[in-house]
């Protein structure tokens, strides 16, 4: 069976318990279709970088799936019908990531990192100019 990473966004008005219920319902769809859910990560209510369907925050959930494509298609179909789900992204991967994902690991390092070191090219100025810098050879 194929390995997928799946992220879905639930709108901010629903409570975390309702998000859990939604995840449970979706995993039921997957298992009925003959698949497995290997990881279920709830990233919490995060602020969005831009408004999605007039929401500024959303509940993020990450699922690692091992399922046939029909189960995935059925799950996506149901997600499209559900009004509380804003967006979802399913990606086929060659191998599933074990352990906490990059998002969860980053949380622990948030305090240590502080300010990032200078971005490459950020201090050069004129970065977003329309024309390229003059080529001198």
């Amino acid at each position: 069976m194929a390995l997928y990473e799946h992220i879905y966004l639930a709108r901010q008005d629903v409570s975390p318990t309702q998000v859990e219920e939604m995840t449970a319902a979706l995993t039921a769809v997957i298992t009925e279709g003959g698949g497995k859910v290997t990881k279920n990560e709830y990233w919490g209510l995060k602020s969005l970088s831009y408004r999605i369907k007039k929401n500024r925050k959303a509940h993020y959930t990450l699922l690692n799936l091992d399922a046939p494509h029909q189960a995935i298609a059925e799950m996506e179909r149901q997600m499209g019908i559900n009004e509380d789900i804003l967006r979802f992204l399913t990606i086929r991967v060659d191998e599933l990531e074990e352990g906490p994902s990059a998002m969860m690991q980053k949380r622990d390092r948030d305090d240590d990192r502080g300010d990032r070191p200078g971005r490459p090219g950020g201090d050069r100025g004129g970065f977003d100019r329309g024309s390229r810098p003059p080529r001198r050879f």
Partner: protein
Amino acid sequence: MAIKDLTTTTARRPFQRRRKTCPFSGPNAPKIDYKDVRLLQRYVSERGKIVPSRITAVSALKQRELAKAIKRARFIGIMPYAVQ
């Protein structure tokens, strides 16, 4: 009449002197993951635009993967498309 001064061609090449290796190749290279916003933000300008590889010295293959990851991150809303 302006004649190109060839004697000063090697003087200033601010955008060409970084011939570093690709940060994603070699041992202990970080894996490009669309969920890792911290890593992706280093390759995005202040306005949110993807930085060209001639600036960051990312190899062509990794630049394509990076661009794909940034676009996925933008789609799920953890990175902005544009910043004012």
